């Protein structure tokens, strides 16, 4: 099967099962809602301090949600031994990774797009004018997190201690994503000119490129072991 068809069909399969079950999207959404709820009680500070904390809060919420969502992205393949079928399928293995990655990015982006209005409502933020830049930052950071998360998901999905191992591997390595995303969001939210936080967006972009390429290449070995 041609390379891009594999990506397309893996993405289609994942999206179809998600649309039918709505399992991940609803659990991720309500989990993130709970995180926001806890945040609003954890910091009883004034409005201006809260706004200064916002970029960090947004990305801690998204980070926790992605741990929950990305960690089980290969879980559906474990049932009925689907992983074995992916292993023996005569297709480029890297394409399977990219298809899974695309599915994860799409899922996380949908959750983030639903959550931004909620942040706006609960924390009284005015972000309407900043939506394009926030979306670009969210997209780049989500690609980075998902690229690492998709790779670590297949490493940990068959382990006894999956829930523990996945965040232990993902969080230390995604430090650059969190730094870049928080700083860029800070810049975008405070209305700074794009040039003042451009280098953080570049950092996210470079991280995405490097990690996606290395993971794409490594995935061959994982399915081939």
């Amino acid at each position: 099967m041609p390379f891009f068809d594999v990506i397309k069909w893996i993405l289609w399969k994942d999206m179809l099962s998600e649309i039918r079950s709505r399992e991940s999207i609803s659990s991720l959404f309500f989990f993130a809602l709970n995180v926001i709820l806890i945040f609003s009680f954890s910091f009883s500070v004034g409005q201006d301090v809260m706004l200064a904390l916002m970029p960090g809060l947004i990305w801690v919420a998204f980070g926790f949600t992605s741990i929950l969502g990305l960690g089980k992205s290969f879980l559906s393949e474990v049932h009925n031994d689907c992983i074995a079928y992916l292993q023996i399928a005569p297709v480029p293995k890297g394409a399977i990774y990219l298809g899974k990655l695309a599915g994860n990015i799409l899922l996380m982006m949908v959750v983030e797009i639903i959550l931004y209005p909620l942040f706006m409502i609960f924390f009284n933020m005015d972000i309407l004018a900043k939506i394009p830049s926030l979306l670009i930052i969210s997209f780049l950071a989500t690609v980075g997190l998902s690229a690492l998360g998709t790779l670590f998901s297949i490493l940990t999905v068959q382990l006894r201690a999956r829930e523990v191992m996945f965040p232990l591997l993902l969080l230390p390595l995604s430090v650059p994503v969190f730094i870049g995303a928080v700083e860029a969001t800070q810049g975008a939210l405070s209305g700074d000119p794009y040039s003042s936080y451009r280098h953080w967006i570049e950092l996210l972009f470079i991280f995405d490129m490097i990690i996606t390429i290395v993971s794409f290449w490594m995935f061959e070995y994982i399915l081939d072991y």
Partner: protein
Amino acid sequence: MISASLRGKLWKWSGVIGLLSGLFIFIGLFLGLVVAPPDYYQGEVFRIMYVHVPFAKASLLSYITLFLGSCFYLWKKDFIVDNLCHAAAGIGVFFTSVALITGSIWAKPTWNTWWTWDPRLVSFAILLLILIGYLMLRTFVDDKRKEATYAAVLAIIGFVDLPIVYFSVEWWRTLHQPMSISTRGVSIAPGMLTPLIFMMIGTSLLVSYMLLIRTQMLYLRHLLEAKQGGLLSEESS
């Protein structure tokens, strides 16, 4: 496959390497702790450098070994290289922890803080977390071949990620904290340098010695398990 004769030779010489490393470390410590004059600014405190700096370099050495070994394992699927990687990760945890702890002790009197978000400190902390994650991942995977492959992939991705962590923290730090503590371009007097060189050579030899011993142990355990499982194949030759 690394030939059996080379393996035998390396293991025979490991004792000599161990003795040499002990000798270098002993001379280095003697010169550093007794002979070298106290530092003009830091007094006696600077002597912790003779443990801190060589241990930090040694932890990087073991991580480079881990990275190269992991690449080689994915290429050739040689189990003894996987054992070498496993050994390097455990040794790396030891040296990284010592480097972090001694650094923290040194930072308190000189910088008046136990910890600062300096890129080098953060990268070492992340390195320690990666190595611990690596060892944990290895204990949780049941299948040997899978364990080796997964661990190699993790080691490689961590090695690629670490420089990005370093630079992102450096950028972040220049933005948030004034660079009050300059850690670069510090020149060192020759009398203080000689013990440091001795310690560097000594710890590098110590890493090699520990790697040899530990790899040997893990390899023998691997053979034993294979034998017990009745799966003794070309590995025994």
